[in-house]
């Protein structure tokens, strides 16, 4: 779950999508990577997790499986991001890579990774680690502004990792700066640039661009207009970025959500028949189908 802006509902969705699938019988682990603003544990009703990502960062724990704590749902484990050492909150890049690789081998059916706000390289790496990358937006300009910056940054980072030749990687790196001298703005600009430099890398780029399918969720919709926004954002991604985004659903503004956070319990558990829980359930089904499909 990413989205760039804080407060759009990433953590709410991570917690409740994870809880919805756990309630449907899947084995799920929800991971908070927002070391600067850890909240996922609260949404899941775990007030003070005994272990957290901070223990991995500090080297006290080597295996992320040892960080998993129980939640109120039997099928749902949590890796929290509490008690971070703010002198060095995120793992070093090499250690981050190791961590992400281990996320993939956690013994469960689904892993939900909750990203913090902003587009720090660590945040982008967590976002890109998913088989499905969910972009959460709120129907307001501030959210969209940050979401597009985030998506662009995530995409460019992905390409930096995918490209193999040094000069091409350097060009991708340059392009990460929106004021780059070559005027590369969108993923499509970058594709043309890479194709011009090296046809083989160009093909690799095009392939990776095609397989990058961020899933859009619009949170706190209040009208049909807000719902339509998801389709429009999808069009913007397709037309202006060349990114084949998908619109997986929306969640309405529902007082039950506030009730759930005040009760420090997952909404889908506290109020399973609320409107918002029904919308969350639908997104959970769509995402699990998509993830199963891409995992073959």
């Amino acid at each position: 779950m990413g989205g760039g802006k804080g407060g759009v509902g990433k953590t709410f969705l991570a917690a409740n999508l994870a809880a919805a699938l756990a309630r449907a019988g899947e084995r799920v682990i929800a991971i908070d990577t927002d070391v600067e603003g850890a909240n996922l544990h609260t949404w899941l009703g775990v007030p003070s997790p005994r272990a957290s990502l901070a223990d991995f960062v500090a080297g006290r724990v080597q295996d992320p499986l040892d960080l998993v704590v129980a939640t109120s749902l039997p099928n749902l484990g949590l890796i929290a991001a509490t008690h971070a050492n703010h002198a060095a909150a995120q793992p070093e890049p090499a250690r981050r890579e190791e961590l992400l690789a281990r996320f993939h081998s956690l013994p469960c059916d689904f892993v939900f990774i909750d990203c913090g706000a902003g587009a720090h390289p660590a945040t982008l790496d967590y976002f890109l680690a998913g088989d499905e990358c969910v972009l959460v937006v709120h129907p307001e300009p501030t959210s969209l502004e940050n979401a597009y910056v985030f998506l662009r940054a995530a995409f460019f980072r992905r390409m930096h990792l995918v490209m193999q030749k040094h000069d091409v990687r350097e060009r991708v790196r340059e392009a990460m700066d929106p004021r780059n001298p070559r005027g590369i703005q969108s993923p499509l600009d970058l594709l043309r640039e890479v194709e011009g430099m090296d046809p083989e890398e160009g093909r690799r780029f095009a392939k990776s661009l095609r397989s990058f399918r961020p899933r859009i969720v619009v949170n706190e919709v209040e009208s049909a207009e807000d719902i339509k926004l998801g389709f429009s954002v999808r069009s913007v991604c397709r037309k202006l970025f060349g990114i084949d985004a998908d619109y997986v659903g929306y969640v309405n503004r529902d007082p039950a959500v506030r009730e759930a956070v005040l009760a420090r319990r997952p909404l889908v558990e506290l109020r399973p028949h609320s409107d918002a829980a029904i919308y969350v359930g639908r997104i959970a089904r769509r995402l699990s189908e998509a993830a199963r499909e891409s995992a073959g």
Partner: protein
Amino acid sequence: MRPLPEQDHYELLELPRDAGRDEVERAYRMARSTWAEDGLASYSVAGPSELALLRERVEEAYRVLSDVDARSAYDEALGALASAKPIEAEIDFDDEEEKLPAELPAEIETFEDLSGPEDGRWSGASLRRTRLARGLELEQITAVTKVKPVYLRCIEEERFDALPAAVYVRGFVTAYARCLGLDPSRVASDYLERLLAVRPLHSERRRPRARP
């Protein structure tokens, strides 16, 4: 997906080659709203001139695809598929049907699995979910049914106390359901059951008449 400058009218409007009239209309309205001046979706990623250019292309695509002759000439030029549905065939007005409030076409690709009642019984919440899954605002329902938005909202929120006598509610719900393309009698009977459970029949005499 081809780059934007190379996209044909179908790709621009994100339509399949055999899209029918309704689909073209819907895609056109959606594209107009996506690329509107000061539109929310393009905020911070497209400037006024880029948006104006896109709108021009959208208008041109719509002009061609919504006109039978222009479209078939265009299809021919594209070397298009012979499978395109004849677009006139969809206009099928029945005189009798016209007296009743019509079904409103969905404004978006329907979120099909959000339409319909969760537990097999219709309620205010499932009506609202169905309406939103079709991309419709309450005002659009009002335009067809002539039922005031305030009543429609009360129906959706099941604020039974604020609703008029049951006989009117039945009429409102019937019209609303028909507008969404649902089975009106089934929706109305499920809904009335919920209403009467909270507001028993013997209290009905004191209910105000509706002023739709």
